[in-house]
């Protein structure tokens, strides 16, 4: 540098040459500046494009799920007057436990009565009901049998079993159409397909169209999807109630186990733990645990809870335990963050007034950190609610036809139900059901997350 400076000084100053040079440099800079500004603009456009791409993916995801799932909440059904004809329902009175009869013996007699109930031709009641509404199809009772879904006859049976006094009365029933009929009427199958590729015979298809035109079959909002468990024999009535209860039990277990334990260990690590190698290991360990793939927790559950401890397969208890272990790191990390956010002056003030360390934490720090902790807990629960992979490994992907009454009963969960439905062979029908189940799951998760955001907004303290 210094040498060039001195050499410049030595030279005689030539204003014209300098001006020329300046002009030249200006041109170079100007031409390159245009290029650089162009580059700047492209770069910026790329950034904006990436953001738009991201938002587009969000829109595409929600849009396609809503488009597929919303129509599935409406389903073909018909409201028919069912006459509980005593001529068709010929059974003895409901057995009552006699004196001197052991419960086991009574149960045997009761089962015999139930079997007798099962023999009654309940289908005839439904067919008669439909014919009453559309008398011109009286001679097509065979086709009529495949118009409505098969489990409706069991529903009638169960009602009479509960209340035999129904016999002889007439009641209006909403009867769901068969899944294939629903697919045909909703246009989810190509109507021009040849007969051998259609699920329904031409006669049934024609009958379905006729009933629809007559206004007997209507497309009405389907509440069964919320009330019924899964069903294989009668897909039209399959619902989410069983999966919902399974998920509910698991979430309760997660809330009861994971949040208290997580908060307690966060308090210990953040406020009490001495700084030594043991707590260092625990720290590193928790951070890594948060990033372990969820399926590994499933393997843990399969090996320990089921393989060694012989807990029941497919039970929400095991699922809840596995999900609790999985959400534990999330709860610990968020709780620690919100404890850290409480300024040290609060602690110093409490300690200065003579509070013990535990009193400081429980009376002053924890209440201030509570909104953050609750938010973290809710986010952890929402994460657990949507988890599928570990549940598959502990047998929760089994088909369960009942709503579980306790956490020990066999059950599925909402995300697992989605997995099961997307794999169902009756694709035309279950694609809608799958998307509908996703809508329910997403609605629950969005609800939980909004609750978390609301809590944070409402109770957030800015220091």
């Amino acid at each position, binding site marked *: 540098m210094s040498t060039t400076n001195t050499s410049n000084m030595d030279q005689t100053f030539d204003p014209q040459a300098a001006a020329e040079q300046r002009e030249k440099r200006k041109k170079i800079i100007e031409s390159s500046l245009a290029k650089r500004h162009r*580059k*700047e603009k492209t*770069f910026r456009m790329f*950034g*904006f*494009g*990436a*953001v738009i791409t*991201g938002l587009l*993916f*969000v829109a*595409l*995801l929600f849009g*396609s*799920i809503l488009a*597929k799932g919303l129509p599935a909440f409406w389903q073909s059904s018909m409201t028919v007057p069912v006459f509980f004809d005593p001529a068709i329902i010929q059974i003895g009175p409901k057995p009552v436990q006699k004196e001197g009869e*052991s419960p*086991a013996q009574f149960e045997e007699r009761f089962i015999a009565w139930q079997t007798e109930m099962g023999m009654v031709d309940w289908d005839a009641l439904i067919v008669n009901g439909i014919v009453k509404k559309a008398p011109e199809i009286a001679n097509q009772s065979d086709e009529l049998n495949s118009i409505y879904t098969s489990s409706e006859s069991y529903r009638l049976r169960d009602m009479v079993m509960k209340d035999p006094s129904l016999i002889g009365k007439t009641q209006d029933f909403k009867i769901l159409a068969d899944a294939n009929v629903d697919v045909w009427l909703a246009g989810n199958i190509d109507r021009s397909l040849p007969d051998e590729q259609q699920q329904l015979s031409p006669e049934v298809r024609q009958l379905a169209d006729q009933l629809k035109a007559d206004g007997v079959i209507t497309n009405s909002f389907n509440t069964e999807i919320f009330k019924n468990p899964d069903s294989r024999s009668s897909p039209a009535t399959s619902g989410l109630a069983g999966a919902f209860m399974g998920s509910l039990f698991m979430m309760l277990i997660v809330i009861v186990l994971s949040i208290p*334990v997580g908060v*307690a*260990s*966060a*308090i*210990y690590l953040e406020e*009490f733990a001495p700084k030594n190698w043991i707590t260092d290991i*625990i720290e*590193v360990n*928790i951070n*890594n*645990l948060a990033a*372990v*793939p*969820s*399926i*590994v*927790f*499933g*393997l*843990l559950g399969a*090996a*320990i809870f089921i*393989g*060694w401890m012989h807990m029941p397969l497919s039970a929400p208890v095991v699922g809840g335990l596995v999900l609790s272990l999985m959400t*534990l790191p999330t709860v610990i990390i968020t709780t620690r963050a919100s404890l850290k956010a409480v300024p040290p002056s609060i602690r110093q003030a409490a300690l200065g007034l003579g509070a*013990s360390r*535990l009193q400081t934490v429980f009376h002053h720090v924890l209440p201030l950190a509570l909104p953050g902790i609750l938010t973290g807990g809710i986010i952890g629960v929402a*994460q657990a609610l*949507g*988890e*599928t*992979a570990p549940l*598959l*490994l502990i047998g929760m992907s089994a088909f369960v036809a009942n709503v579980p009454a306790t956490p020990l009963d066999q059950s599925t969960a909402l995300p697992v139900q*989605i*997995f099961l439905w*997307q794999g169902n062979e009756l694709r035309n029908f279950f*694609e809608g059901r799958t998307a509908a189940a*996703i809508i329910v*799951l997403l609605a629950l998760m969005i609800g939980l*997350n909004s609750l978390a955001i609301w809590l944070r907004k409402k109770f957030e303290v800015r220091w």
Partner: protein
Amino acid sequence: MNLLLIGVLLAIIAIAYQVGLTKSRKLAGKGNNSAMLHSRPGYYGALVALWCGIPAFLILIVWNLVEPSIFQQVILNHVPERIRATLDPASTSVMVERVQALASGFGVSDTPAAYELAAAEQLKKIENIGSFAKLAVVVSAALIGLVMAKRRIAEKYRARNQVEKVLNVALALCSGVAILTTVGIVMSMFSEAMRFFSFVNPLDFFFGTEWNPGFSTSGSAEGSYGLLPLLWGTLMVSGIALLVAVPVGLMIAIYLAEYAKPSFRSWAKPAIEVLAGIPTIVYGVFALMVIGPFAKDLGAMIGLDINATSALTAGFVMGIMIIPFVSSLSDDIITQVPRALRDGSLGLGATKSETIRQVVIPAALPGIIGAFLLAASRAIGETMIVVLAAGNSPLLHINPLEAVSTVTITIVNQLTGDTDFASPQALVAFALGLTLFVITLGLNIVALYIVRKYREQYE
């Protein structure tokens, strides 16, 4: 019975708290001058309640663990020798259930054998004695604890320190749960994987190029258990995912951190992060119902044969899933780069994009690489998307338009369905899980180390 007992215990504990409270208050004197006491009255109450509750609950737990095996022994004692010889575990439990049904008065539908009746009679007696004994022992333990603790209450008694010691231990135990989980994961996977390696040579597993485990019903380890095709599938799918997520995610982070107006950022960032909260099963269904058929149609249009379920479909959708992961981590790191670096570069005449590309990104690079590694470990461990959308063909090929199989798909396939838990076909899942665990753990440790080092640099 247990519920009743727990209810009784809780009631006694509540009383114990009150006893401690009133006694300490009485000690404090008429003017309720609690400065006389070492601790506040509530701590005396809590201490009495702890003395009362902890031993009683421990006894109850141990009792409940031991009881069933004693009852079973009682029943078996009544079974004649020749019948006992024929019992296997399944029929034993059936017989025990029958006897229990008889003893509870529910009865059985057929006529019970004489020995069953005798066993039921005995069982009934023992059950009665047992439940009374349980009630008596647990309640008296609680009462003894109550009385002993109450007698220790004195003015100078350091109740608060005692209670706090118990609480401290409880908190420390809770933080041990996380350690126990890790130990549980490592131990269970390791022991089950070892059982698998007793069937199959580890070298054949780790370096085998063919995956064809056969069916567990054959009861033998026949078949080939080569890890490489699965690992290759995993790498291919995650590679595609990263190819999608890294450019998009990084550009999103740069735009939102450097260019976007605060008002735009404040809604765009959470909107994109919505993608991170969506369950993976939803992405799987999305891939299967929307992206897969779309890719197939697109391929048909340009004359390419694209499978609806392929590495490309799964990787693309997985890429969408990890976009917010990359973008918010990189965003954090980019905003952490000190203002002074940017000002220096802008002051020298660099444009904004030049500053970003030549100053900000190089300064943030370690952190960004850490974010990529975390995203990669996320992609490798992802299960539901690949289960639904990657197809399942464990072959070594390099065509991303065809179906592949991954480590996670195989774990799910080997452990669901009718598999015998002790067969190598099921146990291989644990060896695969162990491999997965080690890979993701390694990536995480490196990533967290880099991110932490980077943070220290600018603190």
